[in-house]
């Protein structure tokens, strides 16, 4: 092969595979299964048939079949001896959603079909997959109770129940105007309702709003504002749409370095920023949001990211913090309170982004730690909060940011130091192509637990321009 074609081939290969994610927190959910009980066998009666002295199988139970839970089942099925361990995954929903796609649905960039598939397609053979609502975790007794009355005893439990929006936390938000003039785009239903509204909208005040932190994929609301700018430009009606970005933070993003870059983009695109806005209520009768300092922002369409909370199961089981997130060791992913319970993805209280990329990096590290735990070895304190996110900036371009607990997003190249092909913290078309290619990577590699070449679970410092970091 001539050298230039080889380079090109390598380049294309890079594009396809390296572009890791973010914006995607885990993906799943929604259609409720009408009481189909796939498995009625009590799991504690699984015995090994191969051994001369039959022994009781050990149980590893994963709660949640979203991005994190599905990845863990794929990683572990090939690592745990089949004659010793039975892996069970429980999720009440049978549809697995590609949640990063919800960002594109309102703008008719993705179709509804591109963002959902049957969850069972991604659960590997040999894993027991149960579609049933989880009633309670009883950590003192090492048991999980299901709504249908079945009991799952476990030796090791992995919590991957994610996070969901809680619009009822703010007065007036989930009122009569919900999905009429007040929308979310973090659910399939919300994103679809917004798409229908935008198709017919003749213009006015569009307010993109974050209720409180933390939220899943903290860059998504910004991307939404950028994409709205592009969308209305393309429709030839940008002059009729006034876009305002309202946030409880002091700036556009949570990390100072990226905030500067994003602030310039907002200004360039004619998007007004309202910062330090702590919402008290939505006055849906007069179309305005009001904060505790009595600041008011009027809207015709409000696109809000409601309070994000962990699953109600965590609260029922008495295992969560104020927002139902599970207190978890940020380096080992073992829960603080129980040594045989681990947590990953959006369900934890880790000070890392709630994003699919984080779940992905955590899954690789947690797999190793589960094996260490089984072998009675000390856990590796390895997770560094690594996150990697594309930020769609509209007009077919995107930024890419890479950061962890201690390092701010920086400029540089990714994943190959000095080569790229992706640029960190700079707008480019290549980055956008990466984001688009990622949907394929997600369905075909990521949740199946196939390692994405050259993208490591911990952050690499090579090829990046670090400044002094703040703790």
């Amino acid at each position, binding site marked *: 092969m001539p050298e230039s074609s080889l380079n090109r081939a390598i380049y294309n290969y890079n594009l396809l595979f390296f572009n890791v994610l973010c914006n995607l927190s885990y993906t799943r959910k929604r259609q409720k299964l009408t009481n189909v009980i796939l498995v009625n066998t009590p799991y504690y009666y699984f015995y090994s048939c191969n051994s001369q002295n039959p022994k009781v199988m050990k149980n590893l139970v994963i709660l949640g079949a979203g991005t994190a839970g599905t990845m863990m089942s794929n990683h572990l099925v090939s690592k745990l001896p089949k004659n010793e361990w039975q892996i069970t995954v429980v999720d009440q929903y049978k549809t697995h959603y590609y949640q990063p796609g919800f960002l594109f649905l309102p703008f008719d960039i993705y179709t509804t079909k591109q963002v959902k598939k049957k969850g069972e397609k991604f659960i590997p053979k040999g894993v027991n997959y149960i579609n049933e609502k989880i009633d309670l975790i009883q950590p003192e007794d090492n048991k999980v109770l299901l709504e249908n009355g079945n009991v799952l005893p476990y030796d090791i439990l992995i919590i991957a129940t994610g996070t969901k929006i809680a619009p009822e936390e703010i007065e007036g938000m989930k009122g009569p105007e919900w999905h009429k003039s007040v929308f979310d785009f973090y659910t399939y239903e919300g994103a679809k309702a917004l798409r229908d509204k935008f198709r017919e909208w003749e213009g006015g005040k569009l307010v993109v709003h974050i209720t*409180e*932190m933390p939220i899943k994929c903290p860059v998504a609301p910004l991307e939404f504002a950028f994409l709205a700018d592009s969308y209305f430009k393309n429709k030839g009606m940008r002059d009729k749409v006034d876009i305002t970005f309202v946030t*409880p933070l002091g700036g556009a993003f*949570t990390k100072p370095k990226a905030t500067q870059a994003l602030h310039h983009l907002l200004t360039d695109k004619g998007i007004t920023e309202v910062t330090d806005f702590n919402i008290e209520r939505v006055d849906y009768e007069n179309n305005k949001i009001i904060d505790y300092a009595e600041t008011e922002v009027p809207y015709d369409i409000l696109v809000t990211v409601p309070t994000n909370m962990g699953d109600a199961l965590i609260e029922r089981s008495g295992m969560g913090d*104020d927002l139902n997130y599970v207190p978890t060791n940020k380096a080992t992913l073992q829960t603080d309170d129980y040594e045989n319970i681990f947590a990953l993805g959006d369900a934890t209280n880790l*000070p890392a982004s709630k994003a699919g990329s984080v779940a992905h990096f955590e899954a690789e590290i947690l797999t190793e730690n589960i094996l260490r735990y089984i072998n009675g070895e000390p856990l590796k304190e390895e997770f560094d909060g690594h996150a990697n996110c594309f930020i769609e900036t509209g007009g077919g371009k995107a930024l890419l940011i890479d950061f962890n607990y201690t390092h701010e997003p920086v400029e540089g190249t990714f994943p190959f130091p000095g080569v790229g092909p992706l640029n960190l913290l700079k707008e480019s078309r290549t980055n956008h192509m990466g984001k688009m290619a990622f949907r394929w990577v997600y369905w075909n590699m990521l949740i199946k637990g196939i390692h994405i070449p050259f993208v490591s679970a911990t952050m690499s410092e090579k090829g990046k321009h670090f400044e002094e970091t703040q703790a």
Partner: protein
Amino acid sequence: MDKTIAQATISVDQEGYLTDFSQWNKEIGTEIAHEQGIEMTDKHWEIIDYIQDKFKNEEPLSIRGIKKSGVIDIKQFYALFPGGPLKKATMIAGIPKPKSCI
């Protein structure tokens, strides 16, 4: 950088937050409040105590946490520390600016 306040020298960051909580005392808190245009009352101190406790226990601070704490309602919190209540209260308390971060 160093800053002299209430007859003491303290180290602060660029925004004026103490970088070493052990240097804090009530006089310093009162002076910082004064610089922010706030005259401290018992109710103010009650909140400062609460957020210093949170800090010592390494628990993150948030408006939601304050709401749930029962120490004060948010309206009142804004009234006592006008403009960014959490930012001002943490500066007076001598602890780092909260990162509602991530």
